[in-house]
């Protein structure tokens, strides 16, 4: 009798133990299911309705997407994203790689320099954007500084020039994120086996040649992750535009993220805003899903 009772009790606690991990995880699973996947579907649904100021759940097909593709401002935002994305990703990687290689030459003050290169990453884009907005200000900023240095016809009005305003976002964005890419590359460089480099040097290869032919090609993985991470940041860029140019002059420096915010929250065109959000979502997924897939696969192989 006693033995049987004990056995049943351990059976029960064991049963509970087996369920405990799932019970503990359930709030997160529920939150993820509702607030990530449920909400994405909800947005997709809104994007297929004629919703204006208030959500109206009647099917309207792809009407909002058709309107989106006919909207000139959307194309400006998309074109800006292409310009910003290519320059932002390219320049961050270029400068980040150069800084990492230079820092990897047994530099005495490496720690201090690294700290300086990376501090912008700790700051909000709103804070750094405020600083850049002031420096790029045509009346009192850089333009005035250079003019007072003797170049009296120097003009630098990108912030208020609708043809150039998107490039001010590039300047501030690259300044903010280069240190981060530098850190990624530096970690990659430190992971390279020294003996390969030494062997090549013994064979008479010059240092630049060693870097160009051996070291840089061996960091393909770091390039790959940098491109993914930076493109992801680029597509989501919102804060910097809001504080630097508010998308202006006019809507010349709009990005999809600011476009979505403007239409969904200040112009109250819910369906239209939702359609633009879905476009952003699909763009990010097209980049991230293959990346995650390859990451998880390599992890499993290890």
């Amino acid at each position: 009798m006693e033995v049987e009772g004990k056995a049943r009790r351990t059976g029960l606690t064991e049963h509970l133990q087996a369920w405990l991990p799932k019970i503990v995880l359930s709030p997160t699973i529920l939150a993820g299911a509702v607030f990530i996947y449920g909400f994405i579907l909800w947005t997709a649904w809104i994007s297929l309705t004629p919703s204006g100021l208030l959500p109206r759940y009647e099917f309207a097909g792809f009407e909002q997407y058709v309107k989106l593709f006919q909207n000139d401002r959307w194309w400006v935002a998309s074109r800006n994203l292409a310009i910003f994305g290519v320059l932002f990703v390219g320049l961050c990687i270029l400068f980040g790689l150069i800084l990492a290689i230079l820092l990897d030459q047994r530099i005495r003050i490496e720690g201090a320099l690294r700290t300086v290169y990376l501090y912008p990453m700790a700051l909000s884009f709103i804070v750094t954007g405020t600083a850049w907005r002031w420096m790029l200000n045509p009346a009192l900023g850089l333009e005035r500084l250079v003019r007072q240095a003797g170049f009296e016809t120097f003009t630098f009005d990108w912030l208020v020039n609708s043809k150039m305003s998107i490039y001010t976002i590039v300047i501030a964005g690259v300044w903010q994120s280069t240190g981060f890419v530098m850190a990624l590359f530096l970690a990659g460089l430190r992971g390279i086996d020294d003996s390969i480099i030494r062997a090549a040097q013994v064979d008479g290869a010059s240092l630049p040649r060693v870097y160009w032919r051996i070291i840089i090609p061996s960091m393909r993985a770091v390039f790959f992750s940098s491109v993914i991470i930076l493109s992801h940041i680029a597509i989501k860029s919102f804060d910097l535009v809001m504080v630097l140019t508010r998308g202006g002059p006019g809507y010349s420096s709009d990005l999809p993220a600011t476009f979505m915010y403007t239409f969904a929250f200040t112009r109250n065109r819910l369906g239209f805003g939702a359609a633009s959000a879905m476009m952003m979502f699909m763009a990010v997924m097209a980049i991230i899903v293959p990346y995650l897939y390859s990451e998880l696969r390599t992890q499993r192989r290890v």
Partner: protein
Amino acid sequence: MSDQGYVVTPKTPGIVAGRIFIYGLLVLAGVYFLLPFLVMVLTSLKSMEDIRTGTLISLPRQITLEPWREAWGSACIGVQCEGIRGYFMNSVRMVIPAVIISTMLGAVNGYVFSKWRFKGSEIIFSLLLIGCFIPFQVILLPMAITLGRFGLAQSLTGLVMVHIVYGLAFTTLFFRNFYVAVPDDLVRAARIDGAGFFTIFWRIILPLSAPIIVVTVIWQTTQIWNDFLFGVVFTGGETQPVTVALNNLVNTSTGVKEYNVDMAAAIIAGAPTLMVYIVAGRYFLRGLTAGAVKG
């Protein structure tokens, strides 16, 4: 052989010149990164008169703390002229509960995903991971509608909940990747000794977790403090966090633009995360690379 085992190269004038060139470039880059911050500090210490007559990098003729006083306590943001003090406190009140709760949940989740795997847990983890990467625009509208329905629109409580929910994916990822490196044998031995789910967590896993807790807390604090998108969409008026207030201050078009006040306010808004970075930069970088590279 030199001590590091590199090929020994004689110190020819060419090599020395090369070293000077490298140091020169690196220091120049350092100046470039520091300049905006120096300009901010300089500008915040000048009077408007000084700003109008000087340049970006000219030293203040007379150092004044008036812009700082104004930014903190009396600058006009919207219709209120009480500075950014109240908004700064909003951010503090938002960050503390959001960071604590999301970190605690992340720790337990990471523990399950690494040490108590069950059928399907890997797939659930991968699906959760995608939550780290979605552009938040895609959940803004439903969240705004939902918060409104529960009476949490424009409230700090609502904002804290949003930060917890969308921080969970990251905190879970951090802890899971850290616990994967903890030997399974430790857990197995404890289970044979009869220790249960929570006993193992409290007695074995948590005491090992100090570094990852630091990394996660720093990451979450920086992310949530610096957030602008959720703040601008889900709060309004007096409940706004400091980043939103700063943006409003900077973009106010009425009256004379007081750049010195803008700069002081920006430094105040950036000070907490900058301090965290200076004090714990190593952990900050670990969070950055862990959050970015690893899946």
